[in-house]
């Protein structure tokens, strides 16, 4: 188990490193930052001075080295142009809102997806299954930001049950979370369904029946637990998509999280903020994936022995 955990951690660290390289390259490609920091009528000497100060006249590898040092050792992404405070602080300030939204959506997606997936598997090819599969297909095919807008239109504007946006009371969390959860729960539903069908048809379930085990134990203890293995694998991938989806959904609901921050930063070309946001989000995701991998090791006793 320990060896497995260490290996996953190692992979995670490499991933973070690579992300930092991506972020570095992306910003460098976007243009000469120094031009933005000086007046438009600056002389070439003034420009050169600024460039020297920023270290832009050094080789790329050295620049990355400096960048990596700043980022990993000091958490220094520079100062946000818009807010005037260190970018990292701004990002960390907004992170909880996104975590709250994505976390709730993830829980919803798991609950709905696994629950409905099991129901669909138990009633295979009958009408509950057919309805659930159709709904799941629709859920995977509809852009979640559009669903969000329709929800706002129907439930907030016309029915007035929920606020149209912003983060405040508990009810402001409902629509965005459900919106975000829909595509993920559709994928989870499909995979739970097929994994359950496989598990219910397996030899070990056959043997349990031979031994006279009560059907409910067979379904909820044995079949479900075996079926959860591929589901957990998918859930890990879904987390990434959820966080990505959150970025877009936040905009629809004016949710003050990383998504709205990032889009705003891009429009204003606030590079420190962009860098910090992307970096923090990716690191967070790598961490989550690591948790999922470790969870795997706990659920399936075979894995620790690889």
């Amino acid at each position, binding site marked *: 188990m320990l060896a497995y955990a260490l290996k996953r951690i190692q992979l995670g660290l490499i991933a973070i490193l690579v992300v930092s390289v991506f972020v570095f390259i992306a910003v460098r490609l976007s243009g000469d930052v120094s031009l933005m920091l000086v007046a438009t009528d600056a002389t070439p000497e003034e420009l050169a001075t600024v460039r020297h100060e920023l270290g832009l006249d050094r080789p790329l590898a050295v620049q990355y080295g400096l960048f990596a040092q700043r980022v990993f050792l000091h958490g220094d992404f520079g100062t946000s142009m818009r807010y005037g405070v260190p970018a990292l602080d701004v990002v960390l300030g907004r992170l909880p809102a996104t975590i709250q939204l994505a976390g709730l959506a993830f829980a919803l997606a798991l609950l709905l997806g696994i629950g409905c997936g099991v129901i669909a598997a138990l009633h295979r090819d009958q009408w509950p299954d057919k309805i659930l599969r159709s709904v799941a297909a629709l859920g995977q095919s509809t852009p979640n930001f559009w669903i969000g807008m329709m929800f706002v239109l129907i439930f907030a504007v016309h029915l007035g049950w929920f606020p149209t946006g912003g983060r405040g009371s508990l009810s402001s969390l409902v629509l965005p979370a459900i919106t975000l959860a829909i595509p993920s729960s559709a994928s989870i539903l499909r995979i739970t369904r097929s994994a359950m069908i496989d598990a219910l048809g*397996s*030899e*070990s379930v*056959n*043997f*349990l*029946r*031979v*031994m*006279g*085990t*009560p*059907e409910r*134990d067979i379904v909820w203890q*044995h079949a479900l*637990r*075996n079926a959860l293995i591929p589901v957990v694998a998918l859930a890990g991938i879904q987390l990434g998509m959820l966080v990505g989806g959150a970025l877009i959904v936040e905009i629809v609901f004016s949710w003050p999280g990383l998504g709205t921050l990032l889009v705003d930063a891009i429009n204003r070309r606030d590079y420190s903020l962009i860098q910090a946001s992307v970096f923090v989000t990716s690191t967070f995701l790598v961490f989550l994936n690591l948790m999922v991998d470790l969870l795997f090791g706990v*659920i*399936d*006793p*075979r894995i620790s*022995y690889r």
Partner: protein
Amino acid sequence: MSLPSTAKPVLEVRELKTWLRGHDGGALLKVVDGISFSLAAGESLGIIGESGSGKSMTAMSLMRLTPLDAQGGGSVVLEGEHLENKSAHELRSIRGRRIAMILQDPMVALDPLFSIGDQLAAPLANHLNLSGDALEARMIELLTAVGIAAPADRLEQYPHEMSGGMLQRVVSAMAISCDPAVLIADEPTTGLDVTVQAQFLDLLEDLQRRRNLALILITHDVGVAVRICQRIAVMYAGRIVEAGPMEDVLERPAHPYTQLLLASAPHMGGMQRGSLPTIPGTPPHLGRLPAGCAFAPRCPQAFDRCRVDTPPEFAVSAKHSARCWLVAQ
């Protein structure tokens, strides 16, 4: 076909039928087509046949575990009770308790996510309501009875940590855990190494004797059945075509299919002839059975009547019978 037995039977099967729908709801497959036999405590019956002969489905039908859309009929009387009238709930309390089964591949039959102890405890808890120390004591006793050393340690282990032979012993322990009257072993040695097979068969025989079990051993390997079974039934295309005491059938096989089976078995003398003779042709498609005797197309001794009329059971001797027109002559 009835196999009379001497003592009061623990299991009586009459005209058991299980018919399945083929893929896409096509032809009706008569997988089990009128099986009858009876078995007393302490008796062992070997059911042999090629794959597709309906042996495993017979076992499943005995346990009342056929697919939802199967049709069937006949009666199965276990310790005096008719199983075909029982509710699903009642059947669940009978399975694993009064009639138990060992499957072919223990690595696949056991759940990889649960420890040996958890899985062994399940029938004991479900059927006998054991728990705590009594449960643990019983589990250790069972594992010892099937010849597993250091049983207490094994309880914590997982299936993938144990060998096939050992797992099959665990499965056997689970099967006998509630002291069933009947034990069905469906190809129990097929998934095991040759060296381990003999040991396992010894174990089965030992368990059967000590607990006075009625044992049904299903296999395609004649040598396996010969080793521990007192009686033998040969299945072909869903029917028993020959049955009787083991020595009788071995010495004077009446049905041509039995003769060919015995000749082609490696342990039985096929080796002595230099090369393994095989039975020509393939088993019939169960949805398109020929008129007359199902074996006629492959039978070296078939004559005209065989292709027209299905032969009924004929007595070869007091307890030995075969479904063949040859016997009638």
